[in-house]
């Protein structure tokens, strides 16, 4: 349309205006159809316990009006503005370019510095009592998912094998630690590598049958594997105690000093007043160390032949085989190493909670971890870390929306809208950044100068 216009790009012609009104009308009709049963009609129980149908026309038409107006604004203001922006040659201001290079150079060190100082900041800002929430609910919770995201990133992001049953390895790690620690009284740090190895073994056991599968089929079988592990845990009552779960799991100790209120406890030994915050901070640093270890090992693996073979496998499996790469072994190592990190995270989870049950290892967990990896940008560690903070931290923050009561009245319960807002945010991010937050691939090696590779060229793997 714009091709034969003497009109400057971005202004609205009559034809476009009519089109915009048409679009708005269609949006209004769709909104009417969608909102009529959801919002326009409502059933209420009256005093005689009879259901009566109530209509809410004002609310319904207000919403439809908002939708239509939004559509009009989009086609008359936002779309022309975007077209103008597209039409302009993109020249980046030198200062902006400098800022961007400095940002990408310093972001990771700054972020690591921040997470190391985080418990101190929490203590300083919210005191002994308030810090427990910030360190435990936020810090540790987020870092567990960062670690799980890093682990799954090896399988999904690097090797391109879509694994929807990752929580199985998390469960294997958790139950390995819980059962062995209770039975044999071994310490957390002895059992951590063992739990990782057991999870890696299960990674191999999953890997073998699914080697020939690709894409959707692989995703379905891994999903089933996750469910099998959960169902075995539920039904193998003599060992796992079924739904009731395992309680009284030994907690990690500070070189043999437990974190409790007794005379031998951490607080008493160091002459401090007892507070649960010490255990929280200790656990925080354990999971931080584990997450950093995962990130470090993954970074190193990417520069080794195995890491390059994983990425090559994601790009083109047939070409890999034509170059003499044993794709069977390559896939199995991806599954096993990814599972090992999941097992580490699982045994940490068991040690932190002190209680585990099959409830913690549902498909929703797998889906969350996959969402973190996809949202972060497949293969990008910083992206995965940011996505974990946004997703886990975001859902926790949404619990704290009491101020919305001031806006919508005291009958409004913000926690009810937590998942709704969360879903909306994910949809928006996927529209804005369809290949995840960090959509570029960093080459593992460079002859002269390392240049990020545009996401459009990087394949996502077909399983």
């Amino acid at each position, binding site marked *: 349309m714009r091709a034969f216009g003497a009109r400057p790009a971005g202004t609205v012609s009559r034809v476009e205006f009519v089109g915009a009104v048409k679009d708005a009308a269609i949006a209004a009709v769709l909104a009417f159809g969608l909102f009529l049963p959801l919002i326009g009609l409502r059933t209420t129980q009256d005093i005689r316990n009879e259901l009566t149908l109530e209509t809410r026309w004002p609310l319904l038409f207000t919403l439809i009006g908002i939708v239509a107006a939004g559509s009009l604004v989009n086609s008359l203001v936002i779309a022309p503005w975007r077209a103008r922006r597209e039409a302009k040659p993109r020249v980046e201001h030198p200062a902006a370019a400098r800022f961007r290079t400095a940002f990408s150079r310093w972001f990771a060190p700054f972020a690591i510095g921040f997470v190391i100082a985080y418990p101190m900041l929490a203590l300083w800002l919210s005191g002994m009592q308030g810090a427990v929430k910030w360190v435990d609910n936020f810090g540790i919770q987020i870092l567990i998912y960062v670690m799980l995201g890093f682990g799954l990133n090896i399988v999904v992001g690097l090797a391109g094998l879509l694994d929807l049953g990752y929580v199985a390895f998390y469960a294997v790690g958790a139950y390995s630690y819980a059962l062995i620690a209770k039975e044999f009284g071994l310490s957390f740090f002895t059992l951590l590598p063992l739990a990782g190895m057991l999870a890696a073994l299960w990674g191999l056991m999953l890997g073998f049958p699914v080697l020939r599968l690709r894409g959707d089929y692989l995703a379905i079988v891994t999903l089933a594997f996750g469910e099998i592990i959960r169902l075995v845990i539920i039904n193998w009552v003599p060992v796992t105690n079924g739904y009731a779960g395992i309680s009284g799991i030994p907690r990690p100790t500070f070189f043999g000093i437990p974190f409790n209120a007794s005379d031998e406890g951490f607080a008493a030994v160091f002459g401090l007043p007892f507070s649960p915050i010490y255990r929280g901070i200790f656990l925080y640093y354990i999971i931080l160390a584990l997450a950093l270890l995962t990130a470090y090992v993954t970074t190193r693996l990417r520069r*080794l032949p195995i890491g390059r073979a994983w*990425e*090559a496998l994601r790009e083109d499996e047939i070409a890999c085989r034509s*170059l003499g790469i044993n794709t069977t072994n390559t896939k199995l190592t991806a599954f096993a190493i990814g599972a090992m990190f999941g097992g580490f995270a699982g045994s940490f989870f068991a040690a932190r909670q002190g209680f585990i049950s099959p409830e913690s290892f549902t498909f929703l967990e797998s889906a969350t971890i996959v969402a973190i990896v996809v949202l972060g940008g497949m293969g990008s560690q910083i992206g995965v870390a940011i996505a974990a903070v946004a997703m886990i931290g975001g859902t926790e923050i949404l619990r704290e929306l009491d101020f919305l009561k001031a806006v919508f009245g005291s009958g409004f319960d913000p926690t009810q809208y937590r998942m709704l807002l969360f879903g909306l945010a994910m949809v928006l991010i996927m529209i804005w950044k369809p290949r995840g937050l960090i959509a570029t691939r960093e080459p593992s090696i460079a*002859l002269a100068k390392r240049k990020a590779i545009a996401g459009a060229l990087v394949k996502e793997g077909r399983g």
Partner: protein
Amino acid sequence: MTSAAPALLEVEHLTMRFGGLIAVNDLSFSASHSEITALIGPNGAGKTTVFNCITGFYKPTEGRIGLVHGDPRLWSEIDALTLGGERKLTRADGTLFLLERMPEYLVAHRAKVARTFQNIRLFSGMTVLENLLVAQHNSLMIASGYTVLGVLGLGRYASAERAAIEKARDWLARIGLVERADDPAGALPYGAQRRLEIARAMCTEPTLLCLDEPAAGLNPRETAALNELILSIRDEYKTSVLLIEHDMSVVMEISDHVVVLDYGVKIADGPPEAVRNDQKVIAAYLGVADEEVAAAEAEVGL
């Protein structure tokens, strides 16, 4: 066999059936050491199927594909090896492989048969340099102590990687892509992608290089450069080349030996000049029966 050079590859009675379709029917030919053997034929003649059988991507329905490293006297053992059920026979002076018994990655890794693909298969999201390093996977894997030593930063991985980069740089210089080393392979122009795929295959240090239509989609200048590259591979690296090609300027100019397939059957085998004038070959290419060749030629003005 027409040439005096000892055979490197011996394809015997190769048959490949897909259900009722016979793609390759009782095909026998051989490729010699340090020679360029061209496999030509009209579309659908079964050339790529032969390639897939040789490189292990297909398991042939019938037939034997032998390959010798080292002493050609090992060929005398091939019947014993076939009956014995082993994949290969290793002696101090060489190794005899039965390729039809090996999976594709071992054909590439052990028997040192590298290949390119008709529709280019580069790792498009990885840089040009990374593509060439992936090709050196197996030697680097050993140098990194199967990853264990490499993760810990021990062993000789660092120096092995430097050597691998040097080798990649040599190949990039040869195909004129040093400046593009850090660009993603998928961003290269088509001709450069073809050259890169050949360089990637050569980085595996093959004894036999199988090229599936390397000149497809190239302009005449690029085709001439490709001819030179293939000749230098034969002369400098002593690598034998097996070539599928439709571009007769490539086939006639560089091949030492031409095998012609039509409907999965070999219709001619010999030096390029002999094949060029073979009535059966001309008939196959023109798509007419043997006796109508003269009429058809007159029609198209040959």
